[in-house]
């Protein structure tokens, strides 16, 4: 099986086949001696050569993370033949959406539509788990639209505002 794997933004070409519990593996043209056991769901005991690794797999909000020991990597796997997998990063262009990073309540809206903002200017204050957090602008620009008002409950992924 041929995979295109993206790890923290870098692409890898991975040829991987399993036969009677043994693996053959070519990563970016380099042959690797691989031995893997799924210890339990989402936990892989991996050997490459004689180096041993504990790998944890995690899905958060649709994203796949792989942990090699204590280091986290964002991962995406595509099988070119079946065109499985997703592309991403496309909707980062154009006006930036300010997304609620957590469920919570909007405590204060600090600006109005049409206000100018610098990178890092606070736009709203949210409260969750007894903590208040300022939601900041990800870029310099003008606030095109604000979708929430004070006291509103929001969910992660909800669009709070758009900066252009």
């Amino acid at each position, binding site marked *: 099986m041929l995979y295109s794997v993206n790890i923290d933004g870098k692409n890898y070409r991975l040829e991987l086949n399993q036969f009677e519990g043994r693996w053959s593996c070519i990563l970016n043209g380099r042959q690797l001696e*691989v031995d893997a056991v799924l210890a339990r769901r989402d936990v892989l005991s991996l050997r490459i050569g004689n180096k041993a690794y504990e790998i944890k797999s995690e899905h958060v909000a649709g994203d796949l993370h792989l942990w090699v020991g204590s280091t986290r990597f964002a991962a995406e796997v595509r099988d070119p033949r079946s065109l499985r997998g997703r592309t991403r990063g496309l909707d980062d262009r154009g006006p930036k959406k300010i997304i609620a990073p957590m469920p919570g309540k909007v405590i204060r809206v600090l600006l109005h539509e049409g206000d100018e903002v610098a990178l890092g200017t606070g736009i709203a204050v949210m409260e969750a788990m007894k903590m208040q957090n300022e939601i900041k602008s990800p870029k310099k620009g003008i606030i095109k639209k604000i979708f929430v008002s004070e006291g509103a409950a929001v969910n992660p992924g909800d669009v709070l505002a758009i900066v252009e």
Partner: protein
Amino acid sequence: MFKKILIANRGEIAVRVLRACQEMGIAAVTVYSDVDRASLHVRKSDEAYPIGPAAASESYLNIAKILEVARRSGADAIHPGYGFLSENAKFAQACADAGVKFIGPTASAMNAMGSKTKARQAMEKAGVPFVPGTSRGVESVEEAEQVAASIGYPVMLKAAAGGGGKGMRLVRAATDLKSALESARSEAERSFADSEVYIEKAILNPRHIEMQVLADEHGNTVYLGERECSLQRRHQKVLEEAPSPIVDPEMRRRMGEVAVRVAQAANYTNAGTVEFLVDQQKNFYFLEMNTRLQVEHPVTELITGLDLVHLQIRIAAGEPLPFTQDEVLIRGHAIECRIYAEDPDNNYFPSPGKITLLLAPSGPGIRRDSGMYEGWNVPIDYDPLLAKLIGYGSDREQAIARLTRALGEYFVGGIKTNISLFRRILRDENFRLAKLDTGFLDQMLKQPEDKAVDSNAAGVAAVAAGIFAVLGAPSPASSASGEQASSKWKSAGRRDLLR
């Protein structure tokens, strides 16, 4: 001894107290809000009573409901944990009036200490060392300006009813005083329903060191050594250790004796903590007394070998302290990491949700006090403290080494936690040298993190990603539960909207 104790709390501390009850052969009654039905403390208790909706004011802070559960269950004592009603003198009084023993100090001792300004007035009489400032709330901006000018900037504004950094503001210059006072007052009002704010001289780069005391109801008061709590973010403690690396036996004795004097001045009983600011010349100033068990009590337990919750219960049951000051034996070093559901890579935003995978550390020198389990859905409604990981060692270096090892074993999948923050703190050069002050963490976090991309590890991740794909992971089970979690948040959000 009590037959049945009601635990008026949730999360890891409810589990902690529950364990003490089980160990002492006492039945444990718990209470829970609607979103906490599946909590560990409910599952582990002997009896569990629902007390209302998620909002703490309608459940964990509702005195009438909790006393009603005490009555129905026949509990003869109540342990309040920390937070919630633990420092509420009205609650302590209501327990006494209802004939249920409150496991903690009396309402009057609490009242003496509950208001920072009142405590200051009482302690001044007892000759306790203080940071210069007002002993009562300031009435007006003008008064604040006068006081600040007389003690000299920088000054610190503090809520009289405060705690946890709420209503606290550092003011470096007169021009900032007015707005800081207003925002401190409004935060104090919001957090404690009490807008009283007072002024102290700000000690720059102080250490925050606190002394554990224990007083029985027969007049015996002892101190159990100090805890170094200088590692804070937004005035919230993040990592605590005992003993403090800068406190030697002589300084410990002096601080301990002041702490005992503070407790005795208030006729204090049960467990309490006297907080001090320590300046760079090792002068210590009384800050406040916390009239409850502290989050960080385990580090004291590990270096003294004592169980503070057992002792709290024994004291409340009228037993005398089973040891004298001379018999308190401090050995080794302990460090606690507060594991929060928050995202260190994204400004420490809270991160509730479903825990899809939990690998928990154990082994030599590792204590884990936890309220979470695999499959549990961390609610959005409360403090994000999930667990405490505490490392003990023969010395500080070994405690750090064991804790670092254990943090490497800890994995909480599905939500974000601050575990990586502790890995960073524990390998920090200044932390290892014990060069600590309350500004340490902000300072450290300003440095760009040394994120050397390990290209070998990235390659390993690529191989692993392929293997998971071949083996059919993501397993349908795990991604399905992820969706459940997010839709649960959505419905929680909708519920809020409809209220």
